[in-house]
């Protein structure tokens, strides 16, 4: 039910994002989803990749600071109101969202939303009880 995500610290200077993606490309790592949070001074790149161990290793070898967190991937219908429904469920269940990002699948029937919660297990319960489909780790990696 949980998906592992890696995060990378980036100084806000030109070329750093390109450096990360180059390191990963050279190691043959495939990116499944990503989001970048940025402030005036620094950015945090969050990635879901097909080989987390290898990705972490090559980034560390290249002197990047790398973190690892668990997130939840939720399937949502790709139509108006799909997102609102899920957020309504979370709100009712008193679950706080730290951050989230979304991507649309090839088929176009569903979108996938990656959620980062502090109360991870509680959030999973609330979503499952409301009948929302949570993707397994393997499913996300094989998308």
């Amino acid at each position, binding site marked *: 039910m949980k998906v592992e995500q890696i*995060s990378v*610290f*980036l*100084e806000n200077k030109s070329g750093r994002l390109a450096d990360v993606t180059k390191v990963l490309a050279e190691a043959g790592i495939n990116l499944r989803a990503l989001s970048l949070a940025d402030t005036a*001074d620094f950015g945090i790149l969050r990635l879901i990749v097909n080989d987390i161990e290898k990705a972490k290793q090559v980034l560390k070898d290249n002197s*990047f*600071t790398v973190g690892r967190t668990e997130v939840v991937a939720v399937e949502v219908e790709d139509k108006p109101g799909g997102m609102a429904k899920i957020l309504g469920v979370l709100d009712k269940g008193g679950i706080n969202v730290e951050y989230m990002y979304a991507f649309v699948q090839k088929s176009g029937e569903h979108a996938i939303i990656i959620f*980062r919660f502090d109360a991870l297990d509680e959030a999973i319960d609330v979503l499952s009880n409301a009948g929302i489909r949570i993707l397994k780790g393997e499913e996300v990696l094989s998308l």
Partner: protein
Amino acid sequence: MIFEKDLETLPREKLEALQSERLVSLVERVHDRVPYYKEQMKAAGVKPSDIKSVKDLHKLPFTTKEDLRKNYPFGLFTVPLDQVVRVHASSGTTGKPTVVGYTKNDIDTWATLMARSLAAGGAGPGDMIHNSYGYGLFTGGLGAHYGAEKLGATVIPMSGGQSKRQLMVMQDFGSTVLLCTPSYALNLAEIMEESGIDPKSLKLKVGIFGAEPWSEPMRTEIERRMDLDALNIYGLSEVMGPGVSMECLEGKRGLHVFEDHFIAEIIDPATGEPLPPGETGELVFTTITKEAFPIIRYRTKDITRLMTEPCACGRTFYRMDRVSGRTDDMLIIRGVNLFPSQIEHVLMSVDEVEPHYQLIVERQGSLDTIEVQVEVSEKVFSDEVKVLEGLSKRIQKDMKDLLGITATVKLVEPKTIQRSEGKAQRVIDKRKL
């Protein structure tokens, strides 16, 4: 262990009598042999006969780095050059280096004091002394080297740099005592971690670190990461070299000044007035046994205080507290006096912040700005922006609360701050003053 027990535990009154006797003879000697000292004393209105004991020391004029430069290279030597068996020189980052000389006896005294220092750190015959202080004009390498041999230990003359090779030698030769700058020790610790070397697999038991100011939290950090006791040693070429004062393993608090050879004073750097024991000010040294290059009331520019309380180790020599900064390192940021070591103290008290930092001082319009760059390690990193911003804010607040300065904090990627192989450069002052 105490290397020269009789001398190092001399009762204070006997010690002071010995200092007085040596001081009187020194003053006569430099007055007779060095024209510059004679002129300086004349200008200050002091005759050698005015100096009868240590209590008269304050009547003598100070000697500064500038005086040494004026007499470059050999003008302050008190013996002919054919009696000088070695010279050393300071790095001379600004202008000409300062040159110092040693007779055969001076080299022997120095070796003895360095042997005392190593013994105070628990070293003795049978120890493998890994000497990573630089060999050359800098006094660190050779000073420590001769001391280790005098002690009867085995010395590995590594010098600085080539960190991977240093670690290989440590592993293969079984180094037990490490001598280097504290910033280089951290550099080595980092490379050990990267190479997967468990510090517990090494035989290192003690590290004797000096040649740059460091802090108590940095000691804890080095001890944790290298699994050894980290001790502080002090010295400067103008006074002798390493081994002017040294912390003992028993006390691990303050450095015993080898007072049978050096008289330490603390003065107010602004007025030059001597300060009472315990007060913080500029450290001043008079060497009372050196032959080739004795020095009178040398202003070290190092900021510290003298501790007169008895020590657990039994030595009667007063201790100097760790050097908290230098009068010329002192930054004045919007009128607030600030030493890089104070910032280090604040940073290291924030959990798990890396000891690698740099201060960038700039002037925007008429306002000074200070930026503290801190490396983001895995321990402090988070995937959430608010956590990292919280870290910056916390450092900022601590700086404000504890030091009264408003600094901006910039989180930088690991390894972007230059690593030291000798003395770390902590401050980049871009102000054109």
